[in-house]
């Protein structure tokens, strides 16, 4: 069948069973939009800014097991998308971004809305393509989906010049992809897995440290099974939250810069560490020298060999898909039944650390504590909401006080730390899960970075709950300035804030401003229960000087925590 390039693009998306396409039209993609108009299999979601298109596709991908797809035009369409692409790249989220490009004869001539999209995005994509011949479109899109979702996932961009979308050729969608230069290792090395099992059997102070790779590999069940068989403590990174049930007694909380006392102490003083789909990030272990000063054996399972021994030297590297490796490891463990007594002294130590109750905060009847809002939200939603966040203090409080028992419920920009991510990401989540409660925990700073998406939410009737912890400050910046810059709050106070409830109303939603602690629960109930089917913007006026504890200062060692009780 002879089709135009634009028809081929749309047919490819249909072949890939793309449910939603997040995008924004423009000159270079007009032929593609014309073909979208003529069909109803791929549903297009019109965002209000291209950054949001990519974040929405990202939220969709994180909350499902599918590839998120976005479509943007050339020039500013592509540059606006870059923040979204980099966000997905840092967190290894599978996306396919299709960008329009000026017609091939105009490339390189500084044409209207021309930018070197492949060049600009190169450092923040898993791979990208410039399609120069209509005959290559189908094979390229097939490859893009394959590369995005296999191995360590990531965003893949396909740049298509306008004239190519008008040219015609025979359309055949390839059934499979084979790339001689790209063959990710899935199965772990058996000898290494045996070595790992042996170390785990002998461990006296074992620790399991699980990251976003467990979520990406859909291996929560395997992780939980293995951890229970071993009876070892488990910690999650920010990206790994939900991969192990937070309510389980073996869970010691999140670790890292704002991790729990017990998680950070156990991570530091363990003798055998099983790292699963995590990368010893600077926000997780702090200073690697300090971390490595304490002797321990490290087993590291990761699909990306370059993640292994990057910041911390590893003793037993296992390259492979986390799920497959965990399954094989569990078989070896179950065959030989570990002795739970091995770690009993270690558990006593951990329980002593737990006794510090590092997550306690001073409540108040006068002013709303941000932590209290998150705790109440957990109660009102039964701990089963999808929670997207922006970046800053609110993000950490959401991570600390909303215990996730299931994977893919927690959607946050961990690697890049992108303010403005939450609301558009929640749109993608809500579309993927129309009947589930979806919340954005945000702040008055972050929400204003993509607030225009309230309009998209109206158009597609997305009943997202915006839970804004409004402290009138760029809270995390203010906290660092308080701790490390002599209380000089340089440009971190937000003056002239709008009435957010009225903004929500202006966009056709509901808005509630909450100022008293006694009104918190009622407002949450109104949003999540009474007005379940509406978008409700909850503007919580919270304590403006509250800090996130515990805290490991940037560059310090993991055990050098500032605790709330120290102050």
């Amino acid at each position, binding site marked *: 069948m002879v089709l135009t390039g634009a028809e081929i693009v749309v047919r490819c998306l249909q072949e890939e069973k793309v449910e939603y396409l997040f995008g924004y039209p423009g000159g270079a993609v007009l032929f593609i939009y014309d073909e979208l108009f003529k069909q109803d299999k791929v549903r297009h979601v019109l965002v209000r800014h291209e950054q949001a298109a990519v974040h929405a596709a990202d939220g969709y991908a994180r909350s499902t097991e599918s590839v998120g797809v976005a479509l943007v035009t050339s020039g500013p369409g592509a540059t606006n998308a870059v923040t979204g692409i980099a966000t997905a790249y840092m967190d290894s989220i599978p996306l396919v971004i299709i960008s329009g490009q000026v017609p091939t004869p105009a490339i390189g001539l500084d044409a209207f809305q021309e930018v070197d999209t*492949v*060049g600009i995005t*190169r*450092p923040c994509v*898993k*791979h990208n393509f*410039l399609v120069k011949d209509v005959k290559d479109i189908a094979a390229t899109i097939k490859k893009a989906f394959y*590369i995005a979702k296999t191995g360590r996932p990531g965003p893949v961009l396909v740049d298509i010049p306008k004239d190519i979308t008008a040219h015609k050729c025979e359309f055949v969608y390839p059934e499979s992809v084979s*790339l*001689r*230069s*790209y063959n990710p290792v899935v199965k772990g090395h058996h000898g290494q897995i045996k070595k790992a099992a042996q170390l785990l059997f002998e461990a006296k102070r074992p620790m399991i440290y699980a990251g976003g790779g467990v979520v990406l590999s859909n291996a929560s069940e395997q992780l939980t099974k293995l951890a229970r068989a071993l009876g070892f403590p488990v910690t999650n990174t920010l990206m790994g939250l939900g991969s192990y049930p937070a309510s389980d007694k073996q869970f010691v909380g999140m670790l890292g810069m704002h991790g729990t006392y017990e998680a950070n102490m156990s991570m530091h003083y363990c003798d055998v560490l099983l790292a699963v789909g995590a990368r010893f990030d600077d926000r997780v272990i702090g200073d690697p020298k300090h971390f490595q000063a304490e002797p321990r054996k490290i087993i590291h399972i990761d699909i*990306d*060999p*370059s993640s292994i*021994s*990057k910041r911390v*030297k590893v003793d037993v590297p296992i390259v492979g898909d986390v799920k497959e490796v965990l399954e094989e490891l569990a078989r070896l463990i179950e065959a030989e039944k570990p002795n739970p007594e091995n770690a009993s002294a270690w558990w006593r130590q951990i329980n002593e650390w737990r006794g510090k109750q590092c997550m306690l905060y001073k409540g108040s009847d006068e002013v709303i504590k941000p932590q209290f809002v998150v705790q109440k939200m957990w109660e009102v939603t039964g701990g089963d909401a999808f929670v997207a966040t922006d970046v800053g203090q609110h993000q950490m409080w959401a991570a600390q006080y909303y215990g996730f028992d299931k994977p893919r419920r927690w959607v946050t920009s961990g690697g890049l730390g992108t303010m403005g991510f939450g609301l558009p990401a929640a749109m993608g989540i809500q579309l993927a899960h129309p009947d589930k409660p979806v919340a954005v925990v945000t702040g008055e700073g972050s929400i204003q970075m993509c607030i225009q998406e309230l309009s998209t939410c109206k158009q597609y009737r997305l009943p997202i709950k915006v839970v804004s912890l409004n402290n009138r400050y760029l809270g995390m910046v203010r906290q660092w300035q308080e701790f490390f810059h002599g209380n000089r709050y340089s440009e971190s106070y937000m003056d002239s804030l709008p009435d957010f409830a009225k903004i929500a109303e202006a966009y056709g939603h509901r808005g509630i401003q909450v100022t008293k602690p006694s009104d918190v629960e009622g407002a949450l109930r109104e949003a999540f229960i009474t007005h379940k089917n509406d978008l409700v913007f909850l503007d919580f006026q919270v304590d403006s000087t509250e800090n996130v504890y515990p805290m490991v200062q940037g560059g310090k060692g993991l055990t050098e925590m500032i605790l709330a009780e120290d102050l």
Partner: protein
Amino acid sequence: MRHVISLLLENESGALSRVSGLFSARGYNIESLTVAPTEDASMSRMTIVTSGSDEVIEQITKQLNKLIEVVKVVDLSEAAYIERELMLIKVRAVAKDREELKRMADIFRGRVVDVTDSTYVIELTGTQDKLDSFINAIDRALILETVRSGVTGVGRGDRILKV
């Protein structure tokens, strides 16, 4: 430590910039980089001379392998290998220098490939060290232009980098 890394990559536009971009983005050092197609026109062979600690070199090879268009990577300097670089050096050759430069070229097994009344172009092939030595051996003031191809290399004996 100095390492000579050799790779096979898809001969596609953009592949070179992915490699060079990787080095600049991650702060790796490039001393020289050469690239040209192989007998199979769909594939290019690249040689990179870099330096760094063992950890850095391990990361460099892993990060190179991660690039979708890179087919194979080998650190030639891990075992026996041959390296060669080509240099064309244009020198001022008048009066007694003409004789002296010709003699130096002969000692280094170079050839004079262009001659005018006042200049020579000397072609020289060898390891990086040998070319450096030649430059150091002649009078600096006589050098008009130095053009070096960058290092290329191949493993000795059975060490073969092929798909």
